[in-house]
């Protein structure tokens, strides 16, 4: 059965919420009453329940199967975290309540910040960024502010970005007025310090490096790169999207990083929720700490309070570059991440990183004979990157292969990213998968790979066959955008 849109089944007078009628009163809207009736149909509660339950059934989630989306870190989302985030003391407090009534909230933020600093070996953390890309923006803004403070705002306008960077990196740099200068990768998939040295100069503000990088490899020359960058008077921004591979194994602060965002939804298990909300705190080195945006929590003796404006910040010796968002950040995500960290503890977090790396390498080892590894069959970090060399001349593309995985009951891996390899397939199993689950996944991929070799092309080009939808026409969607429902023409499409 197909599920119609609410606009096709709702009725304008129907409502699933019982609201009391107020006693008669004199409105004070001053002539600005809404008169168009809004025009949104409602559903009774049982109808709404069924509608959204049925919609949900057309989705795939971590809870329903392995979700090997490289670079996205689809790990288990503990329900304890959900329960904790819903404690009235966290969920039902207003950001502008008096400080005396939210001391526990500040304590949690302060504790989480302390853990993040300990994990990363950094000196300060900006908690307010709302997502990873927002954290990137925060980090780069801090760098820009620091450069301006040194009087180099006019001269340092270039940011070095390796080819293998996340797409947000160049976008972020460009957004705040930097020019992007690409740095090519070595044949082994990592950045060559010599290439950085060649690209750097007094016009460079920063390098943006993802480490482990998007090829799933640890940048083994990262310390040397940091040295080059710092010697040139520039800053080292690290994309923390892949921090989950090295928690407890290495600290960005020890590697020379000046700023790094942390995706709480990747490394620390807050749910992805079909596209957010995320949370992207940014850890900062001594060189950047003063420039962190408002607001931030400080401790006055036994009490916590929030520094919310620049004058107050200046009294704390800070020079905030401004404000990234109203209020103080993603409290709901802070609680979840804190619950994750407390649950794992030092031993569990280190083990999680190791298991994530182990799982990725196991997948690599078990598929290396059938699928092609662009940088050779050597250890990877928490994700393993294949390219499409092995699909050459088979009539099957990376996309086809991905869609065929759907028919086998799997969410595909990340495809066509990173851009540095052709037809990329980036597999990140995460530490949440059991060996039995991986073995089944590997067997399935091997079976599919054999089917490719057998020339069973239709299994791929026509895929998915067994999903709520066959392949969708994305071109049509973009050429003739239909971005909202509009009342139907007299002859409407009936729900099947």
């Amino acid at each position, binding site marked *: 059965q197909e599920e119609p*849109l609410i*606009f096709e089944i709702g009725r304008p007078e129907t*409502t699933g919420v019982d609201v009391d009628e107020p006693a008669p009163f004199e409105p*004070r809207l001053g002539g*600005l009453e809404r008169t*168009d009736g809004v025009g*949104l149909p409602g559903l009774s509660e049982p109808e*709404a*329940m069924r509608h959204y339950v049925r919609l*949900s059934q*057309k989705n795939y989630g971590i809870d*329903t199967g392995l979700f090997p989306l490289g670079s*996205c870190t689809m790990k288990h989302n503990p329900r304890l975290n959900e329960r*904790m985030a819903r404690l009235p*003391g*966290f969920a*039902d*407090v207003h950001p502008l*309540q008096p400080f*005396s009534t939210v001391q526990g909230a500040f*304590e949690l933020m302060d*504790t989480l910040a302390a853990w993040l600093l300990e*994990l990363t070996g950094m000196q300060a953390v900006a908690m307010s960024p*709302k997502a990873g890309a927002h954290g990137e923006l925060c980090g780069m*803004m801090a760098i820009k502010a620091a450069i301006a403070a040194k009087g180099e705002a006019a001269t340092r306008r270039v940011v070095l970005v390796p080819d293998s960077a996340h*797409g947000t990196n*160049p*976008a972020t740099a460009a957004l*705040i007025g930097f020019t992007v200068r690409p740095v090519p990768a070595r044949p082994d998939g990592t950045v060559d310090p010599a290439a950085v040295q060649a690209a750097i100069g007094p016009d460079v503000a920063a390098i943006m490096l993802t480490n482990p990088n998007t090829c799933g490899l640890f940048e083994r020359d*990262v310390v040397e790169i940091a040295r080059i960058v710092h010697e040139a008077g520039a800053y080292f921004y690290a994309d923390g999207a892949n921090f989950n591979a090295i928690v407890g194994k*290495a600290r960005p602060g020890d590697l020379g990083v000046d700023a790094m965002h942390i995706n709480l939804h990747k490394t620390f298990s807050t749910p*992805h*929720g*079909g*596209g*957010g909300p995320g949370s992207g705190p940014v850890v900062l080195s001594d060189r950047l700490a003063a420039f962190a945006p408002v607001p931030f929590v400080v401790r006055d003796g036994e009490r916590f309070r929030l520094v919310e404006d620049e004058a107050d910040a200046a009294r704390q010796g800070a020079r905030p570059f401004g404000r990234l*968002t*109203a209020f*103080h*950040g*993603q409290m709901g995500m802070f609680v979840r991440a804190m619950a994750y960290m407390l*649950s794992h*503890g030092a031993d569990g*977090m280190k*083990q999680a990183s190791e*298991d994530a*790396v*182990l799982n990725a390498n*196991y997948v*690599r080892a*078990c598929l290396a004979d059938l699928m092609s590894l662009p940088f050779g069959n050597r250890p990877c*970090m928490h994700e393993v990157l294949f390219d499409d060399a092995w699909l050459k001349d088979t009539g099957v593309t990376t996309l086809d292969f991905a869609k065929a995985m759907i028919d086998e009951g799997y969410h*595909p891996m990340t495809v066509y990213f990173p851009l540095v390899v052709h037809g990329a397939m980036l597999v990140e199993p995460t530490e949440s998968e*059991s060996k039995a689950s991986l073995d089944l996944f590997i067997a399935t991929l091997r079976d599919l790979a054999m089917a490719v070799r057998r020339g069973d092309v239709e299994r791929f080009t026509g895929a*998915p066959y067994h999903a*709520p939808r*066959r392949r*969708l026409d994305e071109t049509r*969607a973009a050429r003739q955008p239909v971005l*909202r429902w509009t009342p139907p023409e007299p002859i409407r499409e009936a729900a099947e």
Partner: protein
Amino acid sequence: MRYLPLNDIERADMLARIGVGSIDDLFADIPADKRRPGLPNLPTRKGELEVERLLGRMAAKNTPASSVPFFVGAGAYKHHVPATVDHLIQRSEFLTSYTPYQPEIAQGTLQYLFEFQTQVAALAGMEVANASMYDGSTACGEAVLMAHRVTRRRKAVLSGGLHPQYAEVVRTLSGMAEDEVVTLPPDVAGTEDLLAAIDGSVSCVVVQTPDLFGNLRDLRAVADKCHAEGALLVAVVTEALSFGLVTPPGAMGADIVVGEGQSIGNGLNFGGPYVGLFATRSKYVRQMPGRLCGETVDSEGRRGFVLTLSTREQHIRRDKATSNICTNSGLCSLAFTIHMTLLGSAGLQRLARLNHAHAVRLHEALESLPQVEVLNKRYFNEFTLRLNKPAAAVVQALADKGIMAGVPVSRLHPGAGLDGLLLVASTEMNTDEDRAALVAGLKEVL
């Protein structure tokens, strides 16, 4: 550790299959002198019970809104969220899914986004809306950048009624992008002369309604002037429930409507996560930031939904993207959509009316106090009081008595000489007893 399925036997088997001797062999690329033996300064793992105790203790140090008479607003509002909403957003298939990059197995997410976009556009009185932004303030910042792209001008004018934290977000973002921002002084009465600030150099004017002080703004004259000068009108709505009762910005000529959607479906959460609303006219859709869901068909001709116009997005165009945003506020927008679907027009209007009624009722009750003056002529569910004492001290004194009286303007506009002003919001959550408690409390401390 309860979250980690592997055991040591399996780990050993897997290392053998990989062909390395120890797990550290897989971390060999980390320079030896930088490798850490673990996290010696942090405690070890804790069972669920212990985590509940630790976090429960922190939570108990906060005062939940529902536990006291509560009149705090200024951009986030305490409303009732039906149990159905929270139940549904916790469905595994919604909660643990990713951005719908594989639309064939993400139609659930995509269809609700399409419903969300339709709802937001209708509420705002606009033609199209995106699939949500981080929150209202970041949506506001993005709206200004978008106006620059549309008009190819780089100067924004911010109303003095705009939430100062929103204004600060705009200034930060625009400042970093090296664009110009003119911010008018705080405008308590809602009567500032915006028209005078609009000329041919201005890309957009940003006006909030209801504004920070609770005033409803008639945007028509500003819209006309903007359009005459080639600028865009960006309207900001921080109380989404007002759409149910108040003429929407779209009907008053706004070109972009941004807003905070928290009031519908989402809790207070100490400020986040919230859900940013972003709506505009169809002609500007390709300049709009954020994700968009569009209708299409599958290879068998059945209706389906996909993310679309993603050439605007960073993961395709990298440094030529409209913004660096690569996520939306998925679960919060789902909560918004479900609550809005439960409400429908009828429920929304009734709920908005009840909010307004409670505010009027509170207004009337406060008028009995000689030390208090209500400054607003027209408002929705929030208004400004002028007190005979600094509002911050009054709020603290009442908080100590277990009453959350509202937001002192001085917290948002420090040093602006507005220390006597108090923002007071009243929603369907307030009872007669709550109002009586506030009035009695004010009587005591004023």
